[in-house]
């Protein structure tokens, strides 16, 4: 199993213990995960993520192919197409975008254009609904959560688009999923790092309605405990314990 939602690097609003690639490799081994798609956390807050991407490629190189880079690319920054090409050459399975942090509204045409370009290059786009619970955010952390409308808009951009949405709640997932055509729904995968388990059983409900094959495994390390998604799967009702997740490596199959 692959962790599609891992990051390295510090977080500007609180201390994170050991957010380093070599520690991540040990954590993956402990959690019996075969690899991770890894972003560079501080790049979400850089005006120009280029230097962060360079750091990411360098940090992950000794751990290839267990750790695959997921660079951050701004579609509102000049020459973004060159960065997409660089990502492709670095064997990145996806790129990360942060519309809320960059103040790009849902429906921004630049986001759609880049998602299409990534899709044509057979790379997914990773979207992050939130880094932290709204109730604990630093006073300067005012970006707010990603809006469901932003995901619907990108999913509708074209047939080549593939999205992985991380850190969404049940309500967010349902709002997007049932707001798309069946064809558009197939372009979106979800990690369940922020979906509630029992007793409300949100994950079980989503597996029954949206389908487990629309979900991938993501931990949100180093921000959150890696044990959480595994615990959620282990507490599913008996009839769902063998539910199959999507294979992120087959996104474009």
């Amino acid at each position, binding site marked *: 199993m692959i962790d599609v939602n891992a990051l390295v690097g510090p977080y500007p609003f609180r201390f994170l213990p050991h957010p380093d690639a070599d520690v991540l490799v040990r954590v993956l081994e402990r959690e019996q995960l075969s690899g991770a798609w890894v972003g560079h956390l501080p790049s979400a807050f850089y005006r120009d993520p280029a230097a962060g991407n360079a750091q990411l490629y360098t940090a992950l190189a000794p751990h290839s192919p267990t750790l695959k880079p997921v660079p951050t690319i701004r579609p509102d920054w000049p020459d973004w197409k060159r960065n997409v090409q660089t990502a492709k050459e670095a064997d990145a399975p996806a790129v990360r975008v942060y519309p809320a942090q960059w103040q790009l509204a849902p429906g921004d045409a630049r986001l759609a254009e880049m998602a299409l370009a990534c899709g044509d290059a057979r790379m997914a786009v990773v979207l992050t609904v939130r880094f932290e619970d709204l109730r604990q955010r630093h006073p300067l952390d005012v970006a707010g959560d990603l809006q469901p409308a932003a995901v619907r808009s990108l999913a509708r951009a074209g047939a080549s688009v593939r999205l992985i949405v991380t850190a969404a709640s049940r309500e967010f997932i349902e709002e997007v999923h049932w707001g798309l055509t069946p064809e558009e729904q197939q372009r979106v995968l979800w990690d369940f790092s922020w979906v509630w388990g029992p*007793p409300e059983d949100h994950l079980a409900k989503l597996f029954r309605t949206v389908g487990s094959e629309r979900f991938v495994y993501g931990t949100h390390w180093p921000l959150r405990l890696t044990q959480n998604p595994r615990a*959620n799967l282990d507490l599913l009702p008996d009839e769902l314990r063998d539910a199959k997740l999507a294979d992120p490596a087959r996104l474009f199959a």
Partner: protein
Amino acid sequence: MTSPESLFDAHAHFLHAGCGRSDWEEVNAARFRAGARMGITCHVASILGSHGFSSPTYFPSPEDVVAGNDAMLELCERQRDLVRMLVTVNPNYTRHALGEIERCVARGAVGIKLLASRRADDPLLDPICELAARRGLPILHHIWQHRRREWPSQEISDGADLARLARRHPTVTFILAHIGGGGDYHHSYAAVRDVQNILADTSGSGVDRGMLDDAIVALGARRLLWGSDLTMETGYAKLRALDHTGLLSPDDIRAIRWRNAARVFCIE
């Protein structure tokens, strides 16, 4: 209920028919299902009035308080090997709250649950704490970790508010609810670190890395109770993570898993 491998959920909730949810029995059953898989040997639980159906969750009417407590008493009767009760009260109705505590303790309640009906340091809480002191009852107090402003639907308290109350009542054991339940838990650690009659429970949907490690450093293993609240998967994750904090001995882990709860709630 107690054995070397016991597991006490110090912060659990159940629903009842008066909560206005057609699936209330399924939710309760899911808690027992997940609890059995995790190895929970004791759910220390409360019912919060009508959970918002006929009065607000955090400001329950006296009628809803009684209905919820009655449902909780009935559940304890049915599941006497697995469930212990905290009696929920609204301190705005002082006489009613005191009577409800006496009524439910006489039928087996092991502690008091306070919500966010009144700020924790409000003098209206004093009569309840005085009764708790006389009866040897711990108080689990709903907490927002660092209250920077008012939030809707509750008169929320934080660790600093609870610390003021706890200093006024040094013989009462207070449990600061859900360090993962929202807000800045580091603020809470700093606020209650030196107030020895405050323990904290580890419940809540938050599973930040460092949350547990820093709680252990600030409070020590003898002042932490494992719990789940509304999200049992995050409780399970924290339970598994305890082994990897690098700070705990097996004895400390047992203290957090159940021994502290057994001591505080006087459960054998």
